[in-house]
């Protein structure tokens, strides 16, 4: 492969690439079902894959040092949700993040919580 080829394939092109190039063209992953407000937390587990962590994945891990929602991550790293879900699915498969479904997806939110929200909104 010539040097000019390598130039065009330069991984550092970063944000110039189309979003799905970050996922190597995949539009589906184990992250597909992640709720928008599911909470993502980095586990601190080391990376054991072969492809290497991309800058976006590293950003996600930084953001997830404390629990952060899927929507917050997508908005923060400014990538479409579908792309973010693929990246999150990979990190989850690697054991590098844990994901907690939102509490109210199952049983409805507790009365106490709703009252707290009402009071909180009033106090804004």
């Amino acid at each position: 492969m010539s040097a000019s080829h390598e130039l065009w394939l330069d991984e550092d092109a970063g944000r110039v690439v189309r979003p799905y190039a970050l996922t190597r063209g995949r539009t589906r992953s184990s992250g597909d079902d992640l709720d928008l407000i599911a909470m993502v937390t980095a586990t601190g587990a080391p990376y054991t894959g072969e492809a290497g962590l991309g800058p976006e994945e590293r950003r996600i891990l930084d953001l997830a040092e404390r629990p952060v929602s899927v929507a917050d991550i997508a908005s923060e790293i400014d990538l479409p949700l579908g792309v973010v879900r693929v990246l999150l699915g990979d990190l989850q498969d690697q054991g590098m993040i844990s994901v907690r479904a939102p509490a109210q997806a199952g049983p409805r939110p507790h009365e106490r919580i709703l009252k707290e929200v009402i009071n909180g909104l009033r106090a804004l």
Partner: protein
Amino acid sequence: MAYEPSEEPVALKILVAGGFGVGKTTLVGAISEIRPLRTEEVLSDRGIGVDDIDGVEAKTTTTVAMDFGRITIREGLVVYLFGTPGQERFWFMWDELSYGALGAVVLADTRRLTDCFPSIDYFEQRGTPFIVAVNCFDGADRHEPEDVRIALDLDPDIPVILCDVRRRASAKVVLVTLVEHALRTLTPAAG
């Protein structure tokens, strides 16, 4: 550096729906720090991308972005707002958005009341608690909430309120009304 939560964080989801240009983005922006959130499904290859996404107010962004706002009630209790495009071609997003949602605000404009029919139908069918907030645009005739209720054929227990979503105080009342309604709906015994 493991994170040690003092209490499991709770996240709640509220949807803001309604027809084109009815004030969804304005409402979310009036009450929370609004940020764009892109959905990939509607990205076309016409070069929508890096530059377009900042302009939440630009009409074209409604095809690629939903409104996303966050209100921190306290540490560990956060309300997320999602402004969802009302046009039918965006319905693919609604199933995901309404799943587990605490409730929805359906914004209505009395000059184009039929625009909010799809949203109301949708939330009625899903059993998602919702209220109707009539956004009072300048120059539009004032309508009594009861007139709107009749025109929309709404159940008597569904709150209908007038609002001006440009005003934070008004946006607050809208959200409080919804959460109170959700509380009544979800815990009927307490009502």
